[in-house]
């Protein structure tokens, strides 16, 4: 493994200054559970790591009446244990609870899971169904973007050089719904054994009024170059009564909308079928 320097700035300004000093030869590191493996495998060989662990403003889960703000350095474990997340954002809790294994969840962060931009990022599908926005900050200033616009390809994000993901802001889906019982949110994941990366994952948010679905948000992971919303399938569900026939139709539509590949974890054909099935089950849940 190549040697690297290790810096632990306490402010964003110091982090930007360090990054500028190394001019592209340094990497920000959050929990490091992915980046350090990639350094060991020599996939990346930075001269320095700039740890974000000591920057206070990136930490913490803040609940407000309208939603929740997750500091990017919030550990997966903290989301898994947060009782308000379990109550109001159940799909996010479900995803946090099955991400890798306890040792990884104790270290890995939600911001790292996003910035890694793996197609299989477990935190992505639940956040994509909830109109999440991301707060970014760089030496040049701040900006907010919808979560959907963040991912550009496997391992690629819209982050500018030096820019940092500060917080993940999620409006509470229940606060906008007159009857909180009419809303369901579910995350499902298929893997070979407990700690594996997802073969495929799926998340659904469904708001019903009587028998009719008023709002449907669907997302899937490990089935395209980026975690994706399934907008065509959503349109099939909205305004309709959710029947077994409709769900069969939706599952088929999902198979067509995604673009999975065959790799060491699974095949393209299986991923298409299992994602359709998981979306159907997530809507039914």
């Amino acid at each position, binding site marked *: *493994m*190549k*040697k*690297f*320097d*290790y810096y*632990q700035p306490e402010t964003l300004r110091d982090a930007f200054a360090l990054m500028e000093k190394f001019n592209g030869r340094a990497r920000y590191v959050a929990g*490091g*559970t992915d980046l*350090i*493996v990639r350094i*060991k495998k020599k996939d990346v060989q930075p001269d320095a*790591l700039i*740890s974000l*662990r000591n920057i206070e403003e990136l930490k913490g889960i803040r609940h407000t009446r309208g939603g929740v703000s997750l500091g990017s350095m919030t550990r997966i*474990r903290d989301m898994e244990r947060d009782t308000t997340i379990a109550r109001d954002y159940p799909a996010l809790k479900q995803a946090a609870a099955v991400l*890798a*294994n*306890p*040792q*990884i969840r*104790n*270290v890995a962060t939600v911001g790292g899971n996003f910035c890694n931009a793996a197609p299989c990022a477990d935190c992505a599908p639940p956040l994509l169904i909830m109109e999440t926005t991301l707060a970014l900050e760089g030496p040049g200033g701040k900006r907010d973007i919808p979560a959907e616009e963040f991912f550009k390809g496997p391992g690629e994000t819209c982050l500018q050089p030096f820019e940092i993901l500060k917080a993940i802001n999620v409006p509470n889906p229940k606060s906008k719904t007159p009857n909180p019982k009419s809303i369901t949110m579910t995350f499902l994941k298929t893997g070979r054994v*407990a*700690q594996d990366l997802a073969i495929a994952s799926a998340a659904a948010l469904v708001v019903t009024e009587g028998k009719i679905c008023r709002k449907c948000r669907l997302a899937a992971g490990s089935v395209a170059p980026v975690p994706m919303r399934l907008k065509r399938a959503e349109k099939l569900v909205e305004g309709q009564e959710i029947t077994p026939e409709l769900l069969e139709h939706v599952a088929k539509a999902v198979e067509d909308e995604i673009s999975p590949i065959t790799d060491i974890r699974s095949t393209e054909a299986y991923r298409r079928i299992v994602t359709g099935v998981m979306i159907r089950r997530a809507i039914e849940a």
Partner: protein
Amino acid sequence: MKEIIHFTLNGQQVSAEIESHKMLIQMLRDIFQLTGTKYGCGMGECGACTVLIDGLSVNSCMYPAFEVRGKSVTTIEGLLGEGNQFHPIQESFVRHGGVQCGFCTPGMIMSAKAMLDENPSPTDAEIRRGISGNLCRCTGYVQIIDSIRESVADYKDRV
């Protein structure tokens, strides 16, 4: 880049000079000679290197040594009581055949401790989930789960 790191190791204040690219496991094994913590895959898959940092289980093979500054680290050696007496989980592993080749054992026991500290009465499903980050290459999982389950009664008495 080298710095002196101060932290708590198995209840004692310690310090060590270490290079910035070294991981916690290298500091534990090479500087403090605490070789109970094993180096397995080096990638966070096998859990042989599991230690506790501020009470939480962590893979020490991927945890930069610099990050333990000011924190409290517990290794398998830190579980021994007065007069080198075994911790109840260790005792239970001995009694119920939880040790085959022994390579995964320190990591298994540290994961079990982290889980039991949080949830002193786990179901079998919770035990399995608690050690889902630890692999046993002898595949002796049944005895390992027995050992953890059987340690629960003793554990509650002691804690």
